[in-house]
């Protein structure tokens, strides 16, 4: 083997290694650190003693954490389902050669550009029954219209879903639109000649072809859903009561507000385990498929 070949063999690994090292430290070492804290009696500052699973027991006997877990499931399910269907719907409509497509696309896409630090107050007003949507509709004449979910502990989480859907649909739409554009239009034409109606063609021919787009959307939306933090703080600050608490806000409050660093770390580890349970099988299947393909 010549020197050049040897170099070519090692260079890729060498170039990749700083990234790998950075991620090993900034992700995996820190996870180990967090796991350690979750087994310690840490309160205000990190302590490196060992108290077993005490903090996990404490975590699971905190009603607020149960609310957070339940909310995460409600939120993730609805958020994914609505965002995906609405995004797909918009993408299909936009793909019908409509006028002003560029403008409309920008309108649906722009929320993705804004953080909830920016739009939080506006959303709060819109959702508030005495200031926002309900008031406007009532003043327009429909006096029976009621939209006060945000005041009701059992409905407030749906308001969080609405705002989250608003933010991310454009993104899902963009990916689906890209998927649709990549599909050969002759397929549609061929099906039309055979007499199939347009909605039918979409349901039975086009949508199944969008499988890769679906996967991308699901991964990205799950990422957004687990990280939803600014969203909750800006919209409801986990209220009313603690009805819209989410794991990320719980972790933040425990660690930085309530001097329960150990409990916060335990909640972080629970979150990571949940993520791993979903993502690792997905990654495994994706990467294995790849190997077969090559």
């Amino acid at each position, binding site marked *: 083997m010549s020197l050049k070949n040897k170099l*070519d063999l090692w260079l890729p690994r060498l170039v990749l290694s700083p990234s790998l090292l950075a*991620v090993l430290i900034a*992700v995996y070492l820190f996870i180990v650190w967090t796991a350690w804290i979750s087994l310690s009696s840490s309160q205000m500052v990190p302590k490196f003693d060992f108290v077993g699973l005490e903090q996990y027991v404490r975590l699971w006997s905190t009603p607020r954490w149960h609310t957070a877990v339940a909310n995460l499931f409600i939120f993730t399910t609805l958020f994914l389902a609505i965002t995906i269907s609405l995004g797909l719907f918009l993408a299909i409509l936009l793909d019908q050669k409509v006028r002003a497509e560029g403008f409309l696309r920008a309108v649906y896409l722009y929320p993705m550009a804004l953080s909830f630090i920016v739009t939080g107050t506006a959303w709060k007003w*819109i959702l508030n029954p005495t200031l926002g949507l309900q008031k*406007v509709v009532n003043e327009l004449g429909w006096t029976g219209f009621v939209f006060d979910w945000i005041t009701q502990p059992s409905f407030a989480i749906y308001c969080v879903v609405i705002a989250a859907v608003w933010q991310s649909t454009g993104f899902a739409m963009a990916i689906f639109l890209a998927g649709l554009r990549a599909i050969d239009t002759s397929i549609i034409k061929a099906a039309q000649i055979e007499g199939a109606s347009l909605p039918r063609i979409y349901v039975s021919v086009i949508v199944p072809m969008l499988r890769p787009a679906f996967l991308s959307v699901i991964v990205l939306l799950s990422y957004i859903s687990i990280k939803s933090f600014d969203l909750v703080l800006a919209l409801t600050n986990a209220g009313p009561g603690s009805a819209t608490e989410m794991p990320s806000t719980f972790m933040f409050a425990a660690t930085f507000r309530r001097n329960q660093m150990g409990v916060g770390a335990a909640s972080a580890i629970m979150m990571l385990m949940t993520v791993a349970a979903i993502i690792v099988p997905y990654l495994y299947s994706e990467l294995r498929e790849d190997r077969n393909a090559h």
Partner: protein
Amino acid sequence: MHTEARSARRSNQIGRLFIYGSLIALAAFYLMPLWVMIVTSLKSLDEIYGGSFIGVPQAITFEAWNKAWQEACIGTACTGLRPYFINSILMVVPAVILSTGIGAINGYILTKWRFTGANAIFGLLLFGCFLPFQAVILPMAQVLGRLHLSGTIPGLVLVHTVYGISFTTLFFRNYFITIPDELTRAAQIDGAGFFRIFFSVMLPTALPIIVVSCIWQFTQIWNDFLFGVSFTAGQSSPITVALNNIVNVTMGRKQYNVDMAAAMIAAIPTLFVYVVAGRYFVRGLTAGAVKG
């Protein structure tokens, strides 16, 4: 035949009506928060406290914008958002370039120079996307302290680059995997080396995904609040932190019009990027990302 054509046209018309109706109704819903922000930023404070929250302003004034840009106080420092806007630019430009560049070369290695364990490494990198960042703040602060980067913009650039690698690598890997290996093999036979192939064969084809990666990273980093509030202080804060400091008054009178103007100012760069580059975004996604 004649009536059939007419009924087909009518059903077509109904279809069009449905399409435009849906698109316009949804567009109204999407524009609502932006509308609230803009009209509020153009109102006087008295009008807002008089109970007008989402209606049309009685008298338009740009005073709030001016105040937010150059007069608003954060603590006793009354500089407006201007210096923090500059901080954010100083942070976001290098961080986007670095993370995109690193992602590009990682994606290249992971697809064209596959070695045993390459997939495992990719998996390791990818899992980093899903790390809840609240959990890493304290250890990260310690690392930054050791590197003497605590409280500085370069420190923030480092953090954003490191946590951006996962996503950018994902983007580029999924894009480069669609480029035939023959291309690189041919270049190799021509005697091109590792870097030569990257710069003259791979990068020129990668424009669409570079755009996607840059847009994604730009928005993520520009909008980040958690790292900004954790790792900077006072005058070195990025704009989201400054915005929070202006808006989040705990015990005092809120200046809603200034708040909204400040929020709009903080949003302008990302809005600009999405609106202007939105077309390329969809194009870039078409070219690669969705094939992952």
